[in-house]
């Protein structure tokens, strides 16, 4: 939730949200049901055909009839009239509880999030305390002191529900406080209180509505539960009280439990659906991603690489270890079409050769790498005219078949070391498990191999590192561990995706040197994805330059540096020679196919 409501608060955006909400039939249906119930409850004195308390002892437990549409109860009272009147109690209960929860939770959350000192500590402690109280018991205590009126119970429940809103508000404030425009506002001389009001409140209104609809539903359920237990005013018709009475005549007339139960269920369900529809309209990115439908995980995570219509042109030498021709990767976009992030890439790597794959962010370098490894997300569509590794075609291979190749034939070194190690497992288990699984060796052998690998990648205290969890490692150490893991099953092809970008400048050269040494020792082929021509000049044999999903130039390194042909290559080289990084520079696009920014590089 918290990262869902980042800050675009232009009126345009809220209009867009409103439109999204209005277009959601389920949400609108829920809203209609709630309006209907509210109107029915408010107008109960007019709409109800009978006095809800009118006892007619000659007409008890009548079945539904034109006079009594829902029949009568054990005291001969009209069930429909009591349902209509009972709605008033439920709605009042919900209103009191949510008002209390908001009045208690939101201001404390604002203060705790904004002045994160002792007040935050205290408020968070109290909030945890309230959350560990069983509500019914507390209510029983309150009732035995203050009586079973609606206000004291619902106010108490509101206080007990306030931690939810407290936490929500607090986390939003903390997120917003980190945003720059708050600083900007402070610089421009606005006071703290004004800052809170102007920015934070406008951001939390949406999420607050979502939570409020749930709390409102909870109020109706708990209140009816209390009535069912007998903590209610028997002279006041309520859904819970009706259930309680129906339960007393359960064996004579069980059907009396249906109407109040359905009234409660329908109201609460509408509230929940309304809350979900508001959340959808707020456009939580995760929600849309999660709902995207195509996210089968166990059966074939990655899309199978389809053979392209275009025939292979044999533009790559038949002797190369990896041959890729006309690789195309597309993603579906909102308006129903497809967008190509890799648009017909052809490249090759010979045995023992290092290919540099160069280009600015978003040019499709990482997508190309994941496409070759078969690690693209399920919503991607991949095709190629030719894709071979050591002469075997990878086209049409299933996830299980690709999985056989990964680790032993081709391996991957990621860009960001800290997020690429599983935080819950030790280095040892993350190194040993794949070796046992892929190489079929014993645990003792795998452990011994892991020690040797770690010491090969330059880790001195291998014993300590093996026992460490990822958060105990430095970035450089973590990257060495990942490199050790990548080469642990002797792959023929290593794909390193900007392996030094996230590292400290002082260790970048060391890690690069390590990769080169390992590549030579093992005679591995390597694709080195980078945006840095310095790195290319250092260690690559050939270089492929990528722009907007296309390779614009692919030549041996010395040739390319001596005589760059493509204007984009020239521009990249110029910017590097001037000492500035190539990132963020733009040259006019020469071919169609705008990338959509799926590239992680």
């Amino acid at each position, binding site marked *: 939730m918290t990262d869902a409501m980042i800050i675009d608060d232009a009126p345009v955006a809220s209009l867009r949200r409103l439109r999204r909400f209005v277009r959601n039939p389920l949400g609108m249906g829920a809203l209609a049901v709630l309006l209907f119930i509210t109107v029915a409850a408010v107008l109960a004195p007019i709409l109800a055909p009978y006095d809800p308390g009118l006892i007619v002892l000659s007409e008890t437990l009548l079945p539904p009839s034109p006079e009594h549409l829902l029949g009568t109860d054990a005291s001969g009272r009209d069930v429909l009239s009591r349902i209509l009147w009972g709605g008033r109690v439920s709605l009042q209960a919900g209103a009191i509880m949510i008002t209390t929860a908001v009045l208690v939770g939101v201001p404390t959350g604002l203060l705790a999030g904004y002045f994160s000192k002792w007040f935050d500590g205290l408020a968070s402690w109290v909030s945890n305390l309230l959350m560990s109280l069983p509500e019914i018991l507390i209510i029983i205590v309150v009732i035995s002191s203050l009586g079973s009126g609606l206000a004291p119970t619902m106010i108490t429940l509101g206080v007990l529900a306030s931690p939810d809103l407290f936490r929500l508000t607090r986390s939003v404030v903390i997120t917003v406080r980190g945003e720059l425009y708050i600083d900007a506002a402070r610089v421009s001389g606005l006071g703290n209180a004004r800052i809170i009001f102007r920015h934070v409140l406008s951001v939390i209104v949406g999420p607050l509505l979502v939570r409020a609809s749930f709390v409102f539903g909870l109020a109706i359920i708990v209140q009816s539960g209390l009535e069912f237990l007998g903590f209610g005013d028997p002279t006041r018709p309520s859904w819970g009280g009706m259930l309680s009475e129906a339960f007393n005549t359960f064996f004579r007339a069980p059907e009396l439990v249906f109407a109040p139960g359905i009234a409660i*269920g329908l109201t609460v369900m509408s509230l929940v659906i309304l809350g979900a529809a508001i959340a959808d309209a707020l456009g939580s990115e995760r929600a849309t991603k999660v709902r995207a439908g195509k996210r089968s995980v166990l059966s074939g*995570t990655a899309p199978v690489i389809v053979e392209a219509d275009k025939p292979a042109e044999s533009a790559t030498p038949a002797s190369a270890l990896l041959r890729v021709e006309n690789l195309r990767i597309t993603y579906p976009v909102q308006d129903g079409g497809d967008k190509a992030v890799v648009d017909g890439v052809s490249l090759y790597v010979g045995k023992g050769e290092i290919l540099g794959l160069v280009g600015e962010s978003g040019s499709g370098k990482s997508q190309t790498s994941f496409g070759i490894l078969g690690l693209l997300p399920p919503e991607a569509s991949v095709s190629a005219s030719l894709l071979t590794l050591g002469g075997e075609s990878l086209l049409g291979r299933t996830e299980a078949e690709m999985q056989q190749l990964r680790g032993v034939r081709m391996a991957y070194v990621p860009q*960001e070391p800290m997020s690429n190690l599983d935080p819950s497992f030790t280095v040892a288990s993350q190194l040993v498990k794949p070796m046992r699984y892929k190489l079929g060796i014993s645990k003792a052998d795998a452990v011994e191999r892991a020690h040797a690998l770690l010491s090969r990648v330059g880790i001195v205290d291998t014993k300590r590192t093996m026992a460490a969890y990822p958060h105990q490692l430095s970035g450089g150490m973590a990257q060495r561990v990942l490199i050790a893991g990548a080469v642990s099953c002797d792959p023929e092809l290593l794909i390193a995706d900007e392996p030094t970008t996230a590292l400290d400048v002082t260790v970048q050269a060391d890690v690069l040197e390590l990769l080169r040494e390992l590549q030579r020792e093992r005679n591995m082929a390597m694709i080195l994805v980078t945006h840095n021509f310095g790195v290319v000049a250092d260690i690559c044999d050939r270089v492929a330059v990528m722009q907007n999903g296309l390779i614009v130039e692919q030549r041996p390194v010395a040739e390319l540096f001596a005589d760059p042909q493509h204007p984009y290559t020239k521009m990249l080289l110029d910017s590097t020679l001037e000492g500035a990084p190539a990132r963020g520079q733009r040259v006019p696009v020469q071919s169609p196919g705008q990338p959509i920014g799926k590239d992680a590089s």
Partner: protein
Amino acid sequence: MIAFIARRLASGIVLAFVVVTGMFFFLKLTGSDPARGALGLYATEDQVETRRLQLGLDRPVLEQYWDWLSHALRGDLGMSSAQNTPVIDLLVTRLPVTVSLAVGAILVAALLGSLLGVLAAINPGRFDRALQVTMVLGFALPNFWVAIILALVFAVKLRWLPATGYIHLTDDPLGWLRTITLPIIALSIGSIAAIAQQLRNSVITVYSQDYVRTLRSRGLSSRSILLTHVLRNASPPALTMLSLQFIAAMSGAAIIERVFALQGIGSVAINASGNSDIQVIMGVLLFTVLLVVLVNLIVDVLYSALNPKVRAA
């Protein structure tokens, strides 16, 4: 690890102390009258006054509090002012019923909720949507209403299981199972949905993490990645949800007990509330809060076993 458990335990005890103390003074200062509660509306003012002296209610509140606390620490929760029986006896006979209900419901919810949550996460489409609908229903239908309907169908109409009563586990295990099945189903439905939903969301979130892709690049099978890496990283939030659901189940049990005429802690508390029986209310409260502290402690220990960062902190 031991230091961590000790710290959590200490904070739990502080929590129990604060709650119990707060509630004691709340009851005393808002004018609950155990003497009147015990004797009923028709007792004369003199009788009530005599009773008040007997119960020691004329003493200063702080003295009464100290008296209660020092006895409670020695395991003596005093006498019920309405029934003239030791509070501890009441609790010992009634508590097992409620605890079997709440613990049973939470175990069922943990098991089924995890299973359904994982299945929904890895089977997008119809199964996942069905779970979403069940989630809404599980929340929207009051569990005591579900309990009534279950009793109607399985006990009254089909006569498969008893509608009322409780048989102690030690007397007849099979009979215990038969009496407790329907209440546990009714009590666990909402928790199953909540846990399934939580686990579904966190499994999907974990699947999008970089390290899952890197594990796949090592050639590990999808199944082994799911069962070891993904589940382990996805379970902490589900565990938190489980402890919240346990607290809700303790509340829910008090209501469900009425449907199945189970003599649990719920009816004790309700009667005590009607009689302003402060000793009994305090006893029930103390036991429940200690139980919640215990469950939270177990969850904390599991949490730290799953998450190395928590252990180190």
